[in-house]
């Protein structure tokens, strides 16, 4: 979608966006870095599918409802599920595609030459970001199709209409999630003069938000609402809600929550479920639209993060002196 829109507008306005976009895309697809990250994700996908099949079909399965979807969220004792892998390693793809977008051009002196061409200056950044987003879309689509195809071959399961919708929604969600990290990487590529600095900054943020955010969240929650002593019992709900709120700062957590809800129709709430809310509830699966509405805020936040991140990088880039 963004590709065609950008292409159409560039053809009309003649800003050179289309040419730059095609060049950036071919650069990405031919680079060893892309092949490496794609191969890594492919191996991980295969492994997680194997783990899921072993778990779901090895022992006794209690229910066969939405079995195809459960392949996405089921891991084994030694391997994570596909959704978990995508949540953790997906950001690496986004960072890889964006961390050296501008600063490498600058340090190699090609940015001045590029800016000397009869094109608008913002076309450079737009093309880089759009090409990155396109590659992310390709990766996610390829991995998703590969996973579905291999799963159908291995298990003989055929996804139903609702399952297909949910898988598509999950893949779209994944693409938006990885684009958040692309936007972050592009910001750092504009801000940092050296590609290595940008890469390190991105990776440290990625590791912090993915691995340590939960520790920080529980630390903050425990500090504000202590769980020890008599008041601990009273604080339990507040403590959990604060921890959840802090955790949700991290796109990793947002994505994990949304992916679980989309892929598991029996998830009926993403917040705290009180005893009173659960009373009288009948075990049933939500229709797709209802699940989507549950995670709609997550999707909106992530899409907004992408737009805001890109806007920040854009403003910064346009204000920079590039001839120096």
């Amino acid at each position, binding site marked *: 979608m963004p590709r065609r829109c950008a292409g159409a507008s560039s053809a009309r306005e003649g800003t050179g966006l289309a040419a730059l976009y095609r060049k950036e895309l071919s650069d990405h697809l031919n680079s060893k870095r892309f092949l490496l990250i794609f191969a890594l994700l492919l191996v991980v996908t295969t492994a997680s599918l194997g783990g899921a099949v072993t778990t779901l079909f090895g022992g006794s399965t209690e229910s066969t409802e939405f079995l195809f979807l459960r392949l996405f969220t089921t891991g084994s004792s030694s391997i994570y599920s596909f959704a978990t892998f995508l949540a953790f390693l997906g950001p690496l793809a986004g960072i890889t595609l964006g961390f050296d977008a501008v600063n490498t051009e600058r340090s190699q002196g090609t940015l001045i030459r590029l800016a000397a061409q009869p094109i608008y200056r913002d076309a450079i950044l737009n093309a880089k970001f759009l090409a990155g987003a396109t590659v992310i879309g390709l990766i996610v689509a390829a991995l998703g199709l590969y996973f579905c195809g291999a799963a159908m071959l291995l298990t003989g399961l055929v996804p139903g209409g609702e399952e297909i919708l949910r898988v598509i929604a999950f893949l779209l969600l994944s693409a938006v999630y990885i684009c958040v990290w692309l936007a972050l990487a592009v910001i750092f590529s504009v801000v940092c003069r050296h590609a290595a600095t940008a890469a390190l900054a991105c990776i440290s943020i990625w590791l912090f938000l993915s691995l340590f955010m939960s520790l920080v969240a529980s630390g903050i929650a425990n500090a504000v609402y202590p769980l020890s002593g008599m008041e601990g019992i009273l604080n339990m709900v507040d403590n959990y809600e604060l921890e959840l709120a802090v955790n949700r700062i991290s796109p990793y957590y947002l994505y994990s929550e949304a992916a679980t809800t989309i892929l598991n129709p029996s998830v009926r709430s993403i917040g705290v479920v009180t005893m009173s809310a659960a009373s*009288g509830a009948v075990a049933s699966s939500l229709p797709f639209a209802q699940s989507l509405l549950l995670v709609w805020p997550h999707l909106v936040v992530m899409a907004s993060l992408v737009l805001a991140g890109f806007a920040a990088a854009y403003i910064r880039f346009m204000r920079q002196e590039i001839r120096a």
Partner: protein
Amino acid sequence: MMRRFSSAGCRWGRRVFAALTSAALAVSLAVPSLAAGGLEMSTSYPGQTVRAGDELEFSLDFDNSSSFGASVSLSVVSLPEGWSGTFEGDGGEISQVYVKSGENDGAVAFLLTVPADAAEGVYAVELLASGGGMSSQLTLSLTVDAEETGGSALTCEYAQQEGASGTSFTFNTTVQNSTAQEQTYSFSANAPTGWTVSFQPSGESTQVAAVTVDARGSQAMEVVVTPPNGVEAGEYTIPISAISGTESLSSELTVVITGSYTLVLSTPSGLLSFDGSAGRQSTVTLSVTNGGNVDLQNINLSSSTPDGWTVEFSQSSIDVLEAGATQELTAYVTPSEEALSGDYALTLTASNSETSDSTEFRVTVKTETLWGVVGVLLILAAVAGLGYVFRKYGRR
């Protein structure tokens, strides 16, 4: 009619003649038999009232007052036209009996068949026993009486039956044709509105409107009475009749419907699920039906809900619900603010002191699409912001 009169006249003449001859014989024979110390033929009940078509058996006793036995010839002296009679002994037809000296009780049976078309009146049958120089005459006086035969009738074994509404009642009835002709009776019943009465021969499932009964015969019939749904409790009398060309038979069946209390809580469409959203009131139209046959008083409506839900009714009780009547009312269901998306079970109950009905509803709590629209608006705002950034900083 003319034929009947003339035949009655004939019979009358014959009867007078018979009476005269028997009197003459009695005078002529009684004296010598007494003198000779001879034979006396008798039966315990020489005069009987019989029905047309009957077969009668008279046990004949012989008293031989002479000192020697004798073979006695038996004969029928006179018999009304159409009647038949035979002497039998040990199951076989006989013409003579050996009468020993002394009393011989029950030695011979006289079988008399009364024709089916025998008219009312008094008939005489004369029997003669003679042999060994002795003879005895016996006159049987038979009265054919239509009253005694009972006439044609429509009778019922158990004419009064009791049951709840919704059951059908089967009356075993018998159509007795006591006339001499085959009759075709057509049936009719005068049932209250809504009731159905069907006639079928016993052991058959065919419903018939009329049945042909042989002369002097009977036909067992089943009369099936089905009350309408929701019939009120009480006693109902259903006159039934069987009418042929010459006869009109009638009988009365009584059905006592006992009271039943049934309350049904549902919705007019029968759909027991509806949608709602957390904290928002949704309305459900309920229908309360009195399925019994007795008016129900003071029906209360109550609910058993998940925690935090509220259910209100447009009216919390129904004062009187007539038998068979349905009343619609509205329930206002407000799911809890904390309700999760998905299905909840909710039980609504209508009850009074006699009966109650609980219905479980499935409420699907949905997140309102409004929030989806808000989300789209937020994204549009972000895109607009980006557009502003483009306009302000781009194209330099």
